[in-house]
């Protein structure tokens, strides 16, 4: 049988383009699928009539859409679903194996990502309850109602949610899932190496009873991505620092860029730092260190070198394993140039005095390695004796973290933007300061992994408030 072909989905309607890109096994180069690419004009044409897609969702109640989302979650996790338009199907095992082949994520990590997505879909009622702070969701159906005895009215801020997705971590798709239950169609520009998860999610939703018109799947170029963002009233965009800067201050765009997530140990807990080693190591290395919620810095008042060395002793020996090995901890790089860049960027910055790669003695070899035809970066922990060293606040797509000593009294003024901050302290004064800190997005008080996410609380913004606005209302 031929390769699967993933068509674009134009308001659910499959469209086979004359321009296709091949998605390949990152180790062997074998073609796993062809993906139709659309030009920006197609995006513009379809988005000009996106209100039709919203109408298709408005026919349902939120309650019905919550049930569809839960059913779709089960189908995503367990079902065999259509894969493209040439008669292929995809079982969960095939999804795991294929995504692993093209993205470099080991099977075990794909499975964990699947579980996260499944959890979000089957617990959407709880998530929306949290994001809307207990709103009776029939208010969305009627447009108005009461909450805690007060009149409330909500209106949608957009006819579609534009999504420029990454290739590095499938679980990020969880972020857009509430949109369907909230009756907002999605316009997805998938990551080049990861069309699988959004396509499978769309198929799961359709199989569960959602209207196909609510789903746009537009593999496209840079211009096309730009049009998705420009023409959708609300957008989630995943990208690097430059992308984040491009959309800074744009109220229509939530940017999910580097997280610079951190672990801080307070002066009151530093003597017992060894107790927290597990949570530090998992925060740095879970999911192959690819997430914006992976810790990229550990900030302590003292014992910095000892702590760095202890982390390095745990992570330094970690090597690539076969993708189907249950103990695999590292992801391969589908884009080898990215691995080359990261490896050389770290080495270049290590030339600046004040930083030391403390993993090197435990690694028995170079950071960048080839294994079974794939390219991997082994964990790297850098002890920054100079807390202002260029490597002290960096984030890379691999298990990487700096360890630095900063007096507790100065730490909050120095940390800068921090997507997730795990603060290990019981010092009430310090906790009060942490609660007031404006540069922390999610705060974990106590030894909680930075990788723990609560979907019913905001994550780089509240999806409900992003998609709906409250207005005053009176009825005579």
């Amino acid at each position, binding site marked *: 049988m031929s390769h699967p072909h993933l068509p674009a989905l134009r308001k659910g309607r499959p469209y086979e*383009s*004359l*321009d296709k890109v091949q998605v390949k096994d990152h180790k062997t180069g074998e073609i796993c699928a062809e993906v139709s*690419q*659309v*030009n920006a*004009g*197609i995006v*513009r*044409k379809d988005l*000009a009539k996106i209100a039709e897609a919203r109408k298709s969702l408005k026919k349902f109640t939120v309650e019905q859409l919550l049930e569809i989302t839960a059913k779709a979650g089960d189908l995503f996790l367990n079902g065999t679903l259509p894969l493209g338009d040439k008669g292929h199907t995809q079982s969960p095992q095939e999804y795991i194996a294929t995504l692993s082949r093209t993205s470099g994520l080991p099977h075990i990590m794909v499975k964990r990502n699947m579980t996260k997505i499944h959890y979000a879909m089957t617990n959407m009622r709880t998530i929306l309850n949290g994001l809307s702070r207990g709103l009776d969701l029939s208010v969305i159906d009627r447009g108005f109602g009461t909450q805690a005895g007060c009149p409330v009215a909500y209106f949608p801020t957009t006819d579609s949610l534009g999504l420029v997705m990454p290739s590095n971590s499938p679980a990020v798709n969880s972020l857009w899932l509430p949109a369907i239950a909230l009756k907002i169609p999605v316009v997805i520009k998938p990551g080049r190496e990861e069309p699988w998860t959004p396509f499978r999610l769309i198929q799961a939703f359709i199989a569960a009873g959602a209207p196909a018109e609510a789903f746009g799947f537009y593999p496209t170029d840079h211009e096309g991505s730009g049009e998705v963002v420009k023409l959708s009233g609300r957008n989630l965009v995943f990208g690097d620092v430059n992308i984040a800067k491009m959309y800074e201050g744009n109220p229509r765009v939530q940017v999910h860029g580097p997280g610079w997530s951190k672990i801080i140990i307070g002066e009151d807990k530093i003597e017992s730092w060894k107790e927290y080693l597990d949570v530090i190591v998992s925060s740095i290395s879970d999911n192959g260190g690819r997430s914006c919620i992976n810790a990229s810095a550990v900030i302590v008042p003292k014992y910095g070198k000892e702590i760095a060395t202890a982390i390095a002793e745990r992570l330094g020996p970690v090597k690539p394993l076969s993708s189907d090995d249950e103990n695999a901890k590292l992801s391969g790089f589908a884009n080898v140039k990215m691995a080359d860049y990261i490896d050389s960027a770290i080495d270049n910055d290590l030339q600046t005095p004040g930083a030391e790669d403390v993993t090197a003695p435990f690694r028995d070899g170079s950071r960048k390695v080839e294994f079974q035809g794939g390219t991997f970066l082994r964990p790297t922990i850098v002890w920054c004796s100079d807390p202002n060293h260029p490597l002290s606040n960096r984030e890379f797509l691999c298990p990487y973290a700096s360890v630095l000593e900063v007096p507790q009294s100065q730490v909050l003024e120095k940390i800068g933007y921090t997507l997730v901050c795990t603060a290990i302290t019981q010092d009430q004064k310090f906790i009060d300061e942490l609660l007031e800190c404006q540069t922390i997005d999610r705060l974990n008080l106590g030894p909680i992994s930075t990788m723990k996410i609560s979907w019913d609380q905001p994550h780089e913004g509240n999806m409900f408030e992003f998609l709906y606005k409250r207005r005053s209302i009176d009825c005579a």
Partner: protein
Amino acid sequence: MTPEEAKAQLDNQVREIINWHFSPETGCQFWLEWAKKNFDPRGVVNSYEDIISKFDHFQDEWLRDLQPEVWVPKAFAGKPFNIFETGGTTGMPKQRVGWNDFRVDYEEFSHKLKDEHFPKGQSWIMVGPTGPRRLRLAVEHLANYRGSACYFVDLDPRFVKKVISNKQFDVARQYMDHVVDQAVLLLKNRKISAIFTTPKLLEALAEKVDLYSAGIRGCFVGGTTMTPQYVRFIVEEVLEGKIGFYPTYGNTLMGLAASVPLEPSDHFSITYYAPQPRAVLRIVDPKATNNTVDYDAWGRVELTTLTKEFFMPRFLERDEAMRRKPRAPYAWDGVADVRPFGAMEKTIVEGVY
């Protein structure tokens, strides 16, 4: 015409044009001086193959650095000429002198247009680069030749390329809107049935006005790259299969290469045929430009212009294309899917032109 007849016609044209430009009675200063420094090709260059083997590539600096008068054939001395320009986004543009060639090219092209798409006597609009370009006079002449008048909305491609190179995308967008708005205004207030524009402007226009309802029946485009997928998008979704589509490839130095009508087996890949024997297109191996590439392979476009007004042997265009076999009514090679040279390796600023 058979390929043999086409070759005989081309070789005959080569001899006539060589004689014309290299004879002291009729030739131009540039080629006469060139002959003194190199060789007199009269009687030596007797075929198109001889041009390939005996002339090096024409240097575009000659059109930038020299005064236009050096290109005036003695036979045209005293006749005022047009100066047509190409390039010029940075530095001096290339300039070509001309008298009547554009009329010959576009009158010939007129016979390839169907009256149902370009009704005789009904107005045209050109939305694109006017200014010092041959295209502006040529389109108006084409309309006039068909008994029609032509409205114009100018677009300055040099400005567009400059702002895009400077990453001033907002400015480029504003300028494009400015151009499109003017065209929309004319389409809404005047009876216009035919349009010449660039593909990008056509797309932008169609986003603001229903072209068919506005009266447009035929569309003649040229300018930027059109991949097969883009052509399909234009045909199916911009023109919605209701408006005649006539893509062309050309420039100030060549004239106009018309395309053959699309057939299903083309999969929206457009093939253009040079206006032989006045101009010849060859798809050459970029690393060995004496050699053509195989059919259906990519190579660099090489242009030779052979008219009494202008002789330009073996000019390497900044384009690449696929070489295609002859196809009726053309008995010579075609060039398909033209795109900027090196498009696969680097980003090329094309803007909207």
